[in-house]
């Protein structure tokens, strides 16, 4: 265990690699921007003034810290382990995404950038970027697949209200990966004055490490809170995984606590054997996309596959490279939950706790529903409730056959 701890602490290496994963696989035009960003981030992450300012906005604007809520009725309902919910859904804008966008947009401002761009799937990262951009007074453009624009109309309108430009992306599968391609293309053309706010722990170095650090506030708070409530660390951490930023934010501060088991829940869509899912680690192979080497869903010729998930935020064919690394090192376990299981998690949490979760977070709840009943009553599970479900009401109503 000591050996594992040492190896897990020093990542990424100076080239931005987590063992074989990660890296900077981008066209030359972007390389200088990544190097500039790395230098700026390395400077500001140790800068007291920057961190004080970031803490101020996280507290006074985002509303942190978020509660660690003991889900008593859910615990009783499942009849096993004690379940705590990390309430990231209570953040301003309704999800964990804002932790990262406040950090990155603040950094963009320090770097003197005049404009930020972002990709978005469910629209949560787009809204969180548009929000931070409005608050810091900086121009913002969000790229979004036309399929996601259709299923997340509410968030599209929110971004527009926040004075952001929303650019529809009609290429490939018209979802998150294509939005990210288009954001990268736009960044390639505007790199001299534009900061690209990536929404998850993926992309070229330094993004996976930087987004992880901004999201680590989740795990750092959780650690303090659970110690205060229970006087000990949890036995399990459970979080859903698309790109994996809410999971990494919760996991990372616990990575050296060997007794804390981590479980990432990927989207199994209609089932892992149907080909219609988004479970990159559970069912993918290592490859290179969007600037990093990681587990990807791809066909037998190395072409990226179309993905499916009921939740737009998990509908991505890759995963952050540090998760691939955690998987390889067996530091975290990666499982999956189907659309149907997620809907059941959605329903149970809503009815038992009066909390309507995002469909993304419902995958984590779904897994907790599988594991908690089999565990002793003194086992502690912390599940990251990464976002609230308001944005998914139309999707759920549609499935239930209700017209709103």
């Amino acid at each position, binding site marked *: 265990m000591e050996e594992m701890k040492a190896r897990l602490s020093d990542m990424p290496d100076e080239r931005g690699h987590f063992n074989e994963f990660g890296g900077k*696989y981008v*066209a*030359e*035009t*972007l390389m200088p921007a990544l190097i500039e960003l790395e230098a700026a981030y390395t400077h500001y992450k140790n800068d007291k003034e920057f961190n004080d300012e970031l803490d101020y906005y996280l507290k006074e604007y985002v509303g942190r810290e978020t509660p660690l809520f003991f889900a008593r009725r859910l615990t009783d309902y499942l009849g096993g382990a004690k379940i705590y919910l990390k309430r990231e859904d209570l953040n301003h804008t309704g999800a964990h995404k804002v932790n990262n966008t406040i950090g990155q947009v603040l950094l963009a401002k320090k770097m003197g950038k005049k404009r930020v761009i972002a990709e978005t799937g469910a629209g949560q990262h787009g809204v969180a970027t548009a929000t931070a951009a409005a608050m810091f007074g900086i121009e913002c453009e969000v790229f979004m697949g036309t399929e996601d624009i259709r299923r997340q109309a509410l968030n599209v309108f929110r971004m527009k209200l926040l004075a952001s430009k929303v650019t529809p992306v009609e290429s490939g599968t018209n979802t998150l990966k294509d939005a990210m391609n288009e954001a990268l293309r736009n960044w390639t*053309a505007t790199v001299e004055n534009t900061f690209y706010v990536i929404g998850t722990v993926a992309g070229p170095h330094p993004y996976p490490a930087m987004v992880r650090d901004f999201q680590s506030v989740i795990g750092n708070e959780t650690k303090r809170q659970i110690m205060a409530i229970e006087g000990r660390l949890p036995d399990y951490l459970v979080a859903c995984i698309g790109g994996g930023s809410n999971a990494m934010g919760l996991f990372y501060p616990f990575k050296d606590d060997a007794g804390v088991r981590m479980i990432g829940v990927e989207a199994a869509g209609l089932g892992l054997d149907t080909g219609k899912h988004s479970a990159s680690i559970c069912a993918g*192979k290592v490859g290179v996309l969007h*600037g990093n080497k990681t587990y990807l869903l791809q066909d037998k*010729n190395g072409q990226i596959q179309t993905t499916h998930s009921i939740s737009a935020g998990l509908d991505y064919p890759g995963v952050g490279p540090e998760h691939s690394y955690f998987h390889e090192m067996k530091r975290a376990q990666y499982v999956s939950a189907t659309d149907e299981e997620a809907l059941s998690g959605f329903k149970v949490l809503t009815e038992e706790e009066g909390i309507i979760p995002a469909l993304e977070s419902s995958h984590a709840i779904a897994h907790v529903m599988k594991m908690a009943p089999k565990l002793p009553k003194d086992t502690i599970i912390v599940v990251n409730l990464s976002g609230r479900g308001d944005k998914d009401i139309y999707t759920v109503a549609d499935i239930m056959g209700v017209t709103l």
Partner: protein
Amino acid sequence: MNLPVAGYGGGSTKKAGGHTNKLACKSKRYVVFMSNISVRFKDVLSRGEKLFIPYIMAGDPDIALTEKVIYRLEESGADIIELGIPFSDPMADGPTIQAASERALKNDVTLSDVLALLARVRTKSSIPIILMGYYNPIFFYGAERFAVDAKRAGADGLIVVDLPPDEVDELKPFTDKEGIDIIFLAAPTSTDERLKLIASKSSGFVYYVSVTGVTGARSTLAAAIQHKSELIKSYMEIPVGIGFGISTPAHVTELCRSFDAVIVGSAIVRFLEDISSEDKLLDDVGNFVKELKSATKVN
């Protein structure tokens, strides 16, 4: 011509096997084996011309037609050909080449198909061919296996858009062993430090990207290009080609004043978007390439 490379002064030719001659040049202390690409640069530049390098996507719209287009490109004056490998997520390409990639993938064109096409072309033509694409299909195929198979098929060079010098060590030992040139991109944003790194890792030539942006035909060229050419060339001991956005003979003429080669992609790929007849397509592409090639001969 002003190329400060050890091997460029000439030398003796010997048959080195494979599809073309390899030129072994004796400098004072070493024997430098010149790749087919370097030989082609030397030959064309020594005629007082610059090189014209067209790009097409393999399998757009199908492999059989790509083979015919390759021969027509060569007949019409292409000095080297860049052959695109289709990829589902071409992040550095504009709409024209994205669409070409989609057309090829619609026919399930694979990297193996591209190599098989290249091997067939080699039975009829020895024009230097550079494979250009993204890293994932190559990584998935296996870097070493790819280098061996690409060489066997007759590839002379390789451009992997999203594999910068910083990450190339996982591929370059294999392509070096096979004698395949790796051509890196240099960009308007590249710093002096980056240019030095690019120079240290490139062989064959260096591909200067004319614009801060993705591929795609543009009507006007950036004003700063000529100015930048001297800086780029000051770092490079090998020739420098320029591409991205170039679409007219006037562009070619202008750029040939400062660069050793001009690469045109999207403006040629556009002909393949809407094909009324194969003969007309080949004639249109051929005529366009002839025009562009003659624009390299003005100096």
